[in-house]
């Protein structure tokens, strides 16, 4: 606090550092990681619980196949179905965002969002860093149980696809993470308009559960008419963002989508990421404007 330092504080503290924004972001990521590790016990339990619904799904479909003489349902054999559910579990590990929208809405309601209005920091960027940290810690914890389950169930899977398919699979997973993040962040920002968003989140989760492929493979909807000639329910769902948060990456791995269709669907997924990222920005921008006008 000498006088020489206080002479020109603003000019010397903001000397143009290249990639300063990126450094801020990585520091945020590191600190979020540390924070997540405080709760590792909670994480381990949460991770193991995730396997329970899968077990019930496998039992259900085993019963379905036992009751019918058909070898496959909508192109899925019994083995395919088990492989499919295990793979959607991987996608959900990327695209699901527990606590994200609720957390944003809460920060608006209790006023802690003010911090991001006062400090020179970007809230969406911070949320993204926090979420990546959340996921990284989750993968660290979940890797062994996942590997164990996949090893035990290895006989259900078709042969491992070629390197190109694997690369596109990874890309679809990364996009599903971004899509899930921006969809739920936008949802949370509705908290600027509504005091309570939990019922909206619940409705979203319901639609998400049905249309993402979490409940059944989306290509089972191919035979379902929509009333529009030549357009099936699967065709409609393809143009919505939901199936890209569960079904699509799994379908890529299993070779259910290939070639031009694969490229087209990846483009749809990427387009949704852009749309939701923009929507999230607009929601933040308009939301904070409204918040400021109504009195914080």
């Amino acid at each position, binding site marked *: *606090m000498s*006088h020489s*330092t*206080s002479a020109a*504080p*603003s000019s*010397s*503290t*903001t*000397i143009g*550092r290249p990639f*300063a924004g990126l*450094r*801020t972001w990585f*520091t*945020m990521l590191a*600190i979020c990681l*540390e*924070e997540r590790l*405080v*709760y590792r016990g909670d994480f381990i339990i949460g991770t193991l619980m995730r396997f329970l619904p899968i077990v019930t799904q496998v039992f259900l479909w085993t019963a379905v196949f036992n009751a019918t003489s058909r070898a496959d349902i909508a192109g899925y054999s019994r083995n395919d179905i088990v492989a499919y559910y295990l793979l959607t579990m991987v996608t959900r590990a990327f695209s699901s965002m527990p606590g994200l929208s609720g957390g944003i809405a809460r920060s608006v309601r209790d*006023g*802690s969002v*003010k*911090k991001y*209005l*006062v*400090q*020179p*920091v970007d809230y969406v960027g911070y949320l993204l860093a926090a979420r990546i940290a959340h996921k990284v810690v989750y993968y660290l914890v979940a890797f062994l149980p996942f590997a164990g389950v996949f090893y035990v169930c290895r006989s259900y899977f078709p042969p491992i696809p070629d390197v190109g398919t694997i690369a596109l699979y990874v890309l679809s997973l990364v996009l599903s993470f971004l899509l899930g993040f921006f969809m739920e962040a936008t949802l949370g920002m509705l908290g600027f308009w509504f005091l309570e968003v939990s019922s909206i989140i619940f409705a979203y989760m319901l639609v998400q559960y049905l249309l993402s492929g979490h409940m059944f493979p989306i290509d089972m909807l191919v035979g379902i008419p929509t009333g529009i000639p030549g357009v099936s329910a699967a065709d409609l769902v393809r143009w919505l963002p939901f199936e890209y948060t569960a079904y699509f990456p799994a379908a890529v791995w299993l070779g259910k989508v290939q070639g031009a269709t694969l490229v087209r669907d990846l483009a749809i997924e990427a387009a949704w990421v852009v749309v939701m990222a923009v929507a999230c920005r607009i929601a933040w921008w308009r939301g904070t*404007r409204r*918040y*400021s*006008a*109504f*009195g*914080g």
Partner: protein
Amino acid sequence: MHNSNRGGPADPGGAAVISVDSLAKEYRVYDKPEGLLASVTGLFHRTSRLVEALRGVSLSVGKGEFVALLGPNGAGKTTFLKLLSGIITPSRGTARVLGHVPWERADDFRRRFALVMGQRNQLWWDLPAAESFRLHKEIYRIDSARFDRTRDELVDLLGVRKLMLQPVRELSLGERMKLELVAALLHEPEVLFLDEPTIGLDVVAQHTIHTFLKAVQAERRVTVVLTTHYMKDVAALCERVVVITHGSILHDGPLEEIVDRFTTHKIVTLDLDATPAAGRLERFGFPCEIRGPRATLRIDRTRIADVLPEILRSEGVRDISVEDVPLEEIVAELFRAAPNPSSPNSSAAGATA
């Protein structure tokens, strides 16, 4: 200190760090009548009214001033700080802080001020404060050598060096507040807004924070605006006091001026040989309290010079002390007496609406 330009809308010399002109903020609040039936009708038709939190406030603050905002709950103090720090936008009027319009929230502006809200955490709850400091270093782009120096100075001034490495959730309220202040000052803000920084703290912690703020303000010439309910804060720190009631400025000036302007009495305490006989003291002034041989009197300020020699001449007076009316009482009286422009029986109704 720039006492010359107080109260004016702007300082023509351009030296004002904060200049505020006719700043007003209104909220629309919805009335919710009691009862289930009313709640149901409320679903279709809601009655609302405008609440004027701030009614055209003008003032200017020069570099290095330490200003206290005093006022009862709901007077508009926090609204005023929120406007100055850009959290909310005004309904009317203008404000400039460090040359910026605060609610535009330019990064260049946000790097140059800090806001500390007494009950609000900017530190990460589960991590040691040192980690939050590190994050601030990046957010505010403070270079490493400078960061280390500033942090060390601040934590040593407050005596919290050891606490820096303990998770924040394990700290007491006072310890947390001290670390909040360190976090807020790491980027060496030129303007500091403090919203009730000593609320709920014990006397020792309050004193430490007073000493700290004085040292920081003196050395760095930080401009500080603080809201508080504790007269101790004001007496210890602020040369200038702005009293806000019902959204308007009631008084703006040095602390002593409030005492001069708003007190009519002195408090005189007498130590007597024995319990005084009833009615013996009335001729000097109004006896507030008589407890054994000790008596407290309120004496009109205009009479004090005549009455004191008389008291000293009278028999049985061992000791005498003359004090001002406690600041708390003056301010409480000030708040009570302030006209409320929104009440129907006030002549000023609607003047600023």
